[in-house]
């Protein structure tokens, strides 16, 4: 297992990139700590698979270095990096038995058969396929095949990192839960460094210690699920994480107050003068309908999501969402909305502005 350092890393699929826009992955510096579980989260085409393929050595970055435990491996081929990768579509060797599939990486590295047999048994127990070892891989279902590729990744004890490229996309929903739980358990038991690419926020938030959110080739925030929820560093994070995402409303910020169309909203902290495109962001969870307090709002629609209600409303000509508890009343005379001041974030040109005097605890 290893600590993975990205040093000034960037990649463009265009051999002569002219501008920032040509980069699929924009310049990036980061340390992936040994033994942590990371999720790389972002919409399609945001550069997450590019980053993963650079780490695994399937792709050569156009600039910068990548280090495993301080050793430069930028130019090292995949095999030398000693990493394991599980792909979106299950990759198994069809003509081999499950046993031979699991043994394949070890045999290719010339390990002796007693060790191989022992290791395969161990992995088969881990992924719950002990009784299928003699079966040909060809006839198995997608989830069983994906388990095999997962097992093949873990059969080597000394892997530096386990990389997952949207591994649960083709798996049935009820199997997703099982496999994800299994992955978490494996991480807990064996402490591999794991990097998990996904566009599904639930997967990312439940799997990872730290979530890396990418947008347009750039890492916009790295943090715990809680941090991403409470203090999204970029409006994209606010929008992408949460269901529905954060409300982003154009505003003017002065000190401890924000003004929307001249109406005042209290902020949890004071801000130095902010320039550029200024917006405030409030998660629907921290907005509340009221009869008398706050600013006027026009309720358009109420959706009952079971445990809570989602209220779709119009607020100064803009759509916003409000989440109300299952038992909270929603009545026709509730025409105003209030925001929890401590939970209002301020954004300038889409990036979060830190309040004066540091973050509130």
């Amino acid at each position, binding site marked *: 297992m290893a600590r993975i350092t990205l040093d000034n890393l960037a990649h463009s699929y265009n051999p002569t990139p002219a501008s920032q826009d040509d980069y699929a992955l924009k310049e990036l510096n980061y340390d992936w700590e040994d033994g942590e579980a990371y999720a790389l989260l972002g919409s399609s085409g945001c550069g997450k698979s590019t980053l993963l393929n650079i780490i695994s050595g*399937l792709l050569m970055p156009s600039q910068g270095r990548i280090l495993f435990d301080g050793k430069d491996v930028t130019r090292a081929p995949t095999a030398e990096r000693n990493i394991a990768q599980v792909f979106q579509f299950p990759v198994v060797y069809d003509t081999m038995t499950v046993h031979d599939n699991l043994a394949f990486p070890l045999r290719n590295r010339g390990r002796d058969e007693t060790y191989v047999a022992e290791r395969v048994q161990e992995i088969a127990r881990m992924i719950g396929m002990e009784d299928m070892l003699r079966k040909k891989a060809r006839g198995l279902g997608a989830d069983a095949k994906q388990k095999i590729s997962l097992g093949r990744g873990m059969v080597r004890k000394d892997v530096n990192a386990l990389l997952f490229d949207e591994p649960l996309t083709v798996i049935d929903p009820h199997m997703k839960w099982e496999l994800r739980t299994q992955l978490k358990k494996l991480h807990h038991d064996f402490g591999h460094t794991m990097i998990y690419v996904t566009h599904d926020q639930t997967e990312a938030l439940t799997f990872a210690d730290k979530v890396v959110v990418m947008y347009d080739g750039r890492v916009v925030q790295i943090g715990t699920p809680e941090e991403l929820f409470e203090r999204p560093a970029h409006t994209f994070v606010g929008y992408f994480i949460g269901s529905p995402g954060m409300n982003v409303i154009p505003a003017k910020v002065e000190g401890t107050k924000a003004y929307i169309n001249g109406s005042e909203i209290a902020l949890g902290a004071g801000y130095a003068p902010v320039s550029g495109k200024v917006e405030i962001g409030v998660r629907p969870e921290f907005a509340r309908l009221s009869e008398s307090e706050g600013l006027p709002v026009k309720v358009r629609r109420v959706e009952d999501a079971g445990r809570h209600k989602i209220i779709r409303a119009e607020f100064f000509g803009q759509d916003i969402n409000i989440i109300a508890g299952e038992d909270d009343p929603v009545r026709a005379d509730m025409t105003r909305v209030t925001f929890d001041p401590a939970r209002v974030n301020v954004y300038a040109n889409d990036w979060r502005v830190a309040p004066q005097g540091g973050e509130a605890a």
Partner: protein
Amino acid sequence: MQQKTTNHKAWFLVLPVLVLVAFSAVIPLMTVVNYSVQDTFGNNQFFWAGLEWFQEMLSDERMWNALQRQLMFSGIILAIEIPLGIFVALNMPKSGFWSSFCLVVMSLPLLIPWNVVGTIWQIFGRVDIGLLGYTLDALGIDYNYTQDTISAWITIIVMDVWHWTSLVALLAFAGLKSIPDAYYQAARIDQANRWKVFRFIELPKMMGVLMIAILLRFMDSFMIYTEPFVVTGGGPGNATTLLSIDLVKMALGQFDLGPAAAFSLMYFLVILLISWVFYTVMVNLDKKGM
């Protein structure tokens, strides 16, 4: 339970096809069957012969020899064309201009009419004026396809390989192209060497198209007539008289219509049988999820 609708008028929709197939295949075949069970004399006099011609042909060494040569020919060209086609496909550029270029160049032999292919090689191999024959002769190699059995066989085999390996290569290439990149990436991560990539990824994924290639090449080579006929005319002696050449000699050369009809029916059954075996094997492979 849903009531099944019965409408016999629907048969009229199938009728055109039935008529077409009847005239193009069934009725001609029936005339052959008709010939095979009768003896014909001048003035269109027919006498019932029963299974006599079949018995005669089955005990005739001539047909067995032709069958033996035929199997040898098909076996040899399959043994060369399939591996060679795979080899070519593996070494073709996967994309870009050169990939398209290779595809076009390789398709060229497939577009040449059979008798032209025969004529090309007939002249190419001639010792007096052909580039190949003349060169070999000048190098002191004893090569003469009109007199020497080995030379004749080599000529028709090389000609077939030249003509048809492209087909196998194109099919194999299509099979290779359909393998997702992830397989190769996984193999790199698993540290599989080139041979293992071929053995465990490429070959299994190509199996389906290769089966089709083998079937097509087998059937085509088993029925081959024009090219060897143009080059060697079945000679020297009977050395390259393959089944269909022998059949034409018998039917149109000697006008032995009865035996030739019996012969062609058995020929047809052999091809049908082998194709059926192939089909069954392929379907079973499909079921296993290839």
